[in-house]
C-alpha cells in the first residue's frame, strides 16, 4: 500500500461536508500558514517539496509562484484550473466530488502565499452538479470563518468563487482559461506577456490545476521536506492517476510516484490487468495528448530498464521510445483495438477543439482527420502515411498554444510504433473494414533503440 496524502479520507462517509472534513483534521493547514508562517515561507515549503504542476506540463509549482509579479496596488489572482477535458483524465472530478473542502483549503493557503484576495475556480460547464457542490462547500467555509474578511483574526481576507465554462477543451490552456473567465471566447493569448505579469483583467495571475492546489495542504501540514521524501528524483510526492480503457479496474488512484508501471497495470490494488483475459496492445500513459506506447515499451524502457510512474521514466527515450506522465490519464488498449481508428478518433477531437486562430492547427488537424478517415476506411494510399507525418511536423512548434503539439504527437507516435498497421490498412482495403489488425500480425518489436 502506498501512502495517500490527498485521498486518505476520501472513503469516509459525508467527508464532503464541512463537519466531517473538519473532524478529520481539515483546515489545519490554514491555521498553521496564516498564524505561524509568512506568505514567503509557504512558497518556500512548496519549493522544498519539489511539487510539480499536476495539470499536464509538470512545471515546478514553487518556481511558478515565485515568478508572480507584485506591483504595488494591483490585485493578484489565483485561478484553479478545473477544466479537466483531456481525454482519459477524470481525477479532478473525483477529488472535487469527494473532497471539495480539500480544494478549498488548498485555495486558501495558496492564495495567502501569493497575496491574492480574490480567487476563482474555473470548472468545465459539463460538471454542472460540481458547480453547486463546490458552492455549497464554499458557503460552509464562509460560515465557519475560513473565507471572507479577516480570516482567524489574522487580517488576511479572501473571497472564493466558482466560475463555470460551457464546453471547450481549449479553455484548459491557461490563457484561454483567463479569456473565458473574462466572459469571452476561449482563444489562447500570444505570450509574452505571461499570466504571471498580465493575466486576468491584466493583473498578475497564477493558474494551477486542482490536484496541484490540493497537494499544497499536506505540504504545509507536514513540511516540504516530508513531501519530497516520497517519490524518486525530481518526481516527488503522490499523483492521482485516472485509469481507463480495457482494464479490469478502471478508476482514480493515488500512487506514490516511482511505482513500477507493471505493478500499476497488473496488480489487483490498481488496474487489475487487462479485461476479458485479453493481451495488452498499447497504452497512452498521460492523457490523449502524449505519445502512445506499444506493449513492449510500456513496462520497460528501450534499454530494458523497468519503467516507473515518474515524469522522467515515462519520458525515457524521448519521443523515439518514450512518452509522458502528462495529466495522469492512463488509457489502456487490448489486442482487439485498432490503432488507426483510435488515432483518427483523437484527431477528430483536436480538430473539433482547435480554437481556429492559427492556420497550422486549424487546417492541419482537419487534414489529418480526413486522411486518417480514408485510411481507416480502406481508401488510403501508402503515401498518406508519410503525408500524415509531414502534416504533424508542420503543426508542431508552429502555433500559439500547445494544442497544436498535442494534436501532432499522437499521430506521429502512432505511425512511429504502428506503421505496419497503417500499411496493412492500405494493403488490405477490404479486410480492414471487417476486422482489426491483430497483435499476432504485428512485426516483431524493433531492436531496442538508444535513448535519445
Amino acid at each position, binding site marked *: 500500500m502506498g501512502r495517500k496524502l490527498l485521498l486518505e479520507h476520501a472513503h469516509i462517509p459525508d467527508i464532503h461536508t464541512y463537519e466531517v472534513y473538519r473532524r478529520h483534521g481539515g483546515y489545519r493547514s490554514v491555521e498553521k500558514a496564516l498564524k505561524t508562517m509568512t506568505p514567503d515561507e509557504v512558497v518556500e515549503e512548496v519549493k522544498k517539496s519539489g511539487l510539480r504542476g499536476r495539470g499536464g506540463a509538470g512545471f515546478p509549482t514553487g518556481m511558478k509562484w515565485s515568478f508572480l509579479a507584485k506591483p504595488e496596488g494591483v*490585485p493578484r489572482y489565483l485561478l484553479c484550473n478545473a477544466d*479537466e*477535458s*483531456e*481525454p*482519459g*483524465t*477524470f481525477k*479532478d*472530478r473525483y477529488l472535487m466530488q469527494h473532497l471539495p473542502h480539500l480544494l478549498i483549503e488548498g485555495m486558501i493557503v495558496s492564495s495567502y502565499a501569493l497575496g491574492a484576495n*480574490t480567487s476563482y475556480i474555473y470548472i*468545465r*460547464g*459539463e*460538471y*454542472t*452538479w460540481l458547480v*453547486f457542490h463546490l458552492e455549497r462547500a464554499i458557503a460552509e467555509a464562509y460560515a465557519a470563518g475560513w473565507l471572507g474578511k479577516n480570516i482567524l483574526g489574522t487580517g488576511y481576507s479572501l473571497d472564493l*468563487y466558482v*466560475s*463555470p*465554462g*460551457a*464546453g*471547450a*477543451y481549449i479553455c484548459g490552456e491557461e490563457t484561454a482559461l483567463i479569456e*473565458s*473567465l*473574462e*466572459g*469571452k*471566447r*476561449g482563444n489562447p493569448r500570444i505570450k509574452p506577456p505571461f499570466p504571471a505579469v498580465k493575466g486576468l*483583467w491584466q493583473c498578475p495571475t497564477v493558474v494551477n490545476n486542482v490536484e496541484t492546489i490540493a497537494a499544497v495542504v499536506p505540504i504545509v501540514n507536514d513540511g516540504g521536506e516530508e513531501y519530497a521524501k516520497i517519490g524518486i528524483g525530481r518526481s516527488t510526492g503522490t499523483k492521482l492517476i*485516472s*485509469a*481507463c*480503457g*480495457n482494464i479490469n479496474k*478502471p*478508476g*482514480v488512484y493515488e500512487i506514490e510516484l516511482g511505482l513500477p508501471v507493471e505493478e500499476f497495470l497488473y496488480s489487483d490494488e490498481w488496474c487489475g490487468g487487462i479485461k476479458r483475459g485479453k493481451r495488452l496492445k498499447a497504452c497512452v500513459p498521460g492523457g*490523449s495528448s502524449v505519445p502512445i506506447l506499444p506493449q513492449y515499451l510500456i513496462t520497460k524502457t528501450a534499454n530494458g530498464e523497468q519503467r516507473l510512474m515518474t515524469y522522467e521514466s515515462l519520458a525515457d527515450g524521448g519521443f523515439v521510445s518514450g512518452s509522458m506522465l502528462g495529466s495522469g*490519464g492512463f*488509457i489502456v*488498449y487490448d489486442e482487439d*483495438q485498432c490503432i488507426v*481508428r*483510435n488515432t483518427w*478518433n*483523437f484527431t477528430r*477531437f483536436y480538430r*473539433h*477543439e482547435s*480554437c481556429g486562430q492559427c492556420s497550422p492547427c486549424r487546417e492541419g488537424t482537419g487534414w489529418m482527420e480526413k486522411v486518417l478517415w480514408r485510411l481507416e476506411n480502406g481508401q488510403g494510399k501508402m503515401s498518406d502515411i508519410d503525408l500524415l507525418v509531414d502534416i504533424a511536423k508542420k503543426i508542431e512548434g508552429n502555433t500559439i498554444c500547445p494544442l497544436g503539439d498535442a494534436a501532432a504527437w499522437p499521430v506521429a507516435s502512432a505511425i512511429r510504433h504502428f506503421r505496419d498497421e497503417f500499411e496493412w490498412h492500405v494493403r488490405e482495403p477490404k479486410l480492414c473494414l471487417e476486422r482489426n489488425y491483430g497483435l499476432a500480425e504485428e512485426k516483431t518489436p524493433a531492436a531496442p533503440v538508444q535513448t535519445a
Partner: protein
Amino acid sequence: MQAITSNGTPFRYSPQALAEVQSLTKKYPEGCGKSALLRALHIAQEENGGWLSVAAMDHVAEVLGLKPIEVYEVATFYSMYNLQPVGKYVLEFCHTGPCAIEGAERLIEYAQCKLGIRTGETTPDGMFTIKEVECLGACGYAPMMQVGEFYHEHLTEEKLDQFIEDCRAGRVNKGTWKMH
C-alpha cells in the same frame, strides 16, 4: 460552427433568474461583469427550452449591458450552447477514444435506430435530441451520456431503454442551472 437562429418567440428571464443573473456579476470586480456571461447563457438556455435563440441572446446582452455581438461570439464558441431548437431531453453521448473503445459507437447507433433519428436531429414528438460530444471526464465509467445536469455511466442498451421509457413517463429529472 452553427448559425444563430431566430424563431420569432420573445424571451425574458423569469424574475428569479433575472435576480440571480444580476447577482452573478457581483463575483467579479467593478466593470468586469461580462465574466458572468457564460453562466447567464446557461440559465437563459434552460429557460428558453434548451436552446439559445437570437431573442434570448439579445436579452442576455441587455441584462449584462453588453453588445449583442459580444454574446453571439461567445454563444457560437462553446459546445454546450444549442443554437437550434432541441428536444425536451438532449442525449449527449461521449464518442471520444476511451468511450469508443468501450463500445460508445455501437451504443450511439443503437440509440439512433431506436429513436429513428441521426445525431443532431430531434424526434418528431419533440422529446429527444441526440448529440455527440467530446470527452466528459467519465472515461473510466464508459460508455456514458449526459442529460441535463446528470451523467449516466456504464451505459448499456438495457439501461438506455429504461432511461428512454422513464423520460416518456416523465420520471426523469434534468437538474437546473439555477441556484438549488
